[in-house]
């Protein structure tokens, strides 16, 4: 899984840090999204995807990277 942030769009609503606290955080000063883990373990994938979908500003893009040995797992 690859995660890209568009921090210029971030509106600091906090949905990512609330939904996937193992993957996303908010900067203490400007409130914007911070990526804690560029390659989160599979245990965090569902939450990371949910967070990307919930972001009110479309500031998070999650793409499924081809992982060796996993051809079609969601």
């Amino acid at each position, binding site marked *: 899984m690859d995660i890209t942030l568009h921090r210029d769009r971030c509106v600091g*609503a906090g949905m990512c840090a609330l939904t996937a606290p193992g993957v996303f955080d908010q900067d203490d000063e400007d409130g914007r999204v911070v990526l804690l883990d560029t390659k989160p373990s599979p245990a965090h994938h569902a939450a990371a995807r949910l967070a990307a979908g919930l972001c009110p500003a479309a500031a998070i893009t999650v793409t499924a990277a081809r992982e060796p040995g996993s051809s079609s797992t969601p």
Partner: protein
Amino acid sequence: MHNEPSTSPVHDAAQHPEPVTLPTERPAGCPFDPPAELAQLREEQPLRRLSFPDGHTGWLATGHSVVRSIMADPRFSARYELLHYPLADVGDIPPAPPGEFLGLDGLEHTRYRRLLMGKFTVRRMRQLTERVEQFTAECLDAMESHGGPVDLVETFAQPIPGLMICELLGVPYAERDFFQEHVTTLFNQAASEEERGTAMAAMMEYLQGLVLAKRAEPTDDLLSDLTTSDLTDEELSGVGVFLLAAGFDTTANMLGLGTFALLSNPDQLAALRDDPGLAEGAVEELMRYLTVADPTLRSALEDVEIAGQKIKAGETVLLSFQAANRDPAKFLEPDRLDLHRKATGHVAFGHGPHQCLGQQLARVEMAVAFPALLTRFPTLRLAVPAEEVPFRANMNIYGVHRLLVTWDKE
């Protein structure tokens, strides 16, 4: 107007129904449910023409997916002066006063939002948990020593958000009673127009004075922090007034109406009382189910094609958050209050660039306050028949004016 015969023989009534007027009447005996017609309109067409009282023909968005798309689309403006009002012909709507950035777009909006974002993060708001617990305990102590019946709105639902706004803005302790008194008058429907006007003037004057005091002697709070920004005194006190307007009545009504919803669903109330771990999920579900801040409006800045419809530049779209939050395409059995469901994805805090800035504070307040109330008074119940609870009909924020409750003494 509704039954004009079609001039075109190929007119497809199913695809292009005549504009409807906004249904506002909630079903009899179901005060927590949106008007039944909204569900029917959503089922027919999640985006359709809507007649406004001033003669404008705009749009009504009821489907969860289309509501989200429009809220996130920069081709729609939130500027008040571009909007038509859905409940009465109020003439031209004036632009937002200084500090009220909900009525601004693009860079004008982000100028304010970016200054404030860092103050409302999940972490910062969770650090306020202990303060919320303390204020809540004080409210519950006062209720207990008074003894039932008491008005839960006055003793619990209003003071908690009021005190948290004082905390955020940095209102000194000695001035909090004064502040709370004016705030409650401001949002009290029983108060006369004149009383509310006086309270508003007093609040504005108070916040102007507070800004000057923070400039002279900064303390550890939001207003003091903002004195180093490029905001003028007028903009800064305007932000204070706006945070108060956006954060007080909304949270207070969620606490009041939420308690009433729990009392009306005893199995759900018991589930929350017996399992504090349920609190965060319960808050999301109560937000979805009650959707107290509704509806909102946007205006198309250019022609937009969306959900198979063509919205023209200048047309107002009414976004029905309550219809979206009861959309069966998004939520299973949407009319059931089910604290165990995953209600994430609701739009009760809005969506897009204006999505509620204070939502993480509101979540902390509710996740603390509801369970604390239920554990302190396990036998909490209404002190009047449910039919006699006065509802706030056709107001910006839905809720109850009063909620008389009582409990068994130990």
